[in-house]
């Protein structure tokens, strides 16, 4: 006999969306991890809720917004790149500048 899917009304594509969403939403009770890496009861509850939201026709972005509205920004695992360009750019800038400095200095010295 075949086992039942836990989220009955979802087809294969929707299940993949569910995994994606659970991977990118933080477990509100944990200090760091996401829903799919957590054993806290709230995580499986939220996963069920996301499944039912998918069922109701919510898009991924709408579900992220929904969660953000209820639990705040921290619930989204990913860092928002647009709002925080500085922490992405600082290392890049440092990298490029130091490589350029060292290289030009080396070339000048070796001449």
């Amino acid at each position, binding site marked *: 006999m075949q086992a039942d899917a836990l989220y009955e009304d979802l087809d294969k594509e929707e299940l993949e969306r569910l995994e994606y969403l659970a991977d990118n939403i933080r477990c*509100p009770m944990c200090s760091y991890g996401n829903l799919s890496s957590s054993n*806290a009861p*709230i995580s499986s*509850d939220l996963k069920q*809720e996301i499944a039912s939201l998918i069922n109701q026709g919510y898009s991924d972005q709408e579900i992220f917004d929904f969660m953000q509205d209820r*639990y*705040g*920004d*921290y619930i989204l695992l990913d860092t928002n790149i647009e709002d925080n360009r500085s922490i992405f750019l600082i290392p890049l800038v440092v990298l490029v500048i130091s490589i350029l400095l060292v290289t030009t200095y080396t070339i000048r010295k070796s001449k």
Partner: protein
Amino acid sequence: MTTRAFLIIFLLLLLSLFSFFAISLQKDYVQPVKNQEGKPLILDRQLYTIDGIKVSEDSLLSGKVILNVYASYCLPCRVEHPFLIEIADSKDVKMVGISHKEQVSATKDYLEELGDPYDFSILDLDGDFSLKLGVIGPPETFLIIDGEIVAHRIGVIDINIWNEKFEKYF
């Protein structure tokens, strides 16, 4: 010359790092999740008490209501329980419990053992009502005035938290 410039930059960086750490040592704990203050209490279904009686919408939406999410399996709930009894006795407020994800018999044993501060307890067997309310896990306490959540505590409530967040509404 370059060494001196480096030295100064370094000192400045280090000093700002130290002061930043010193400040951050004093900061309070920041809740990872937003609380639900300012949102309306939404009743989208018929609720029942643990005794199987229908809960009227009016009993939750009018006046001052304290909603406390608890469960017998939750250890911190036992910690805050005496304080809840104290509040129920001393304040003019309706105290409503939400029995979070457990069988009626376990809840009743728990209330028998520790005393029952609640006017009535709502049965939330699958935790869905709590989930929609924004509960992440018991214990949590809401103060609802005329259907609006005005104060929300995630975690154990005690006299300090009460004075800080709840007392001003009484």
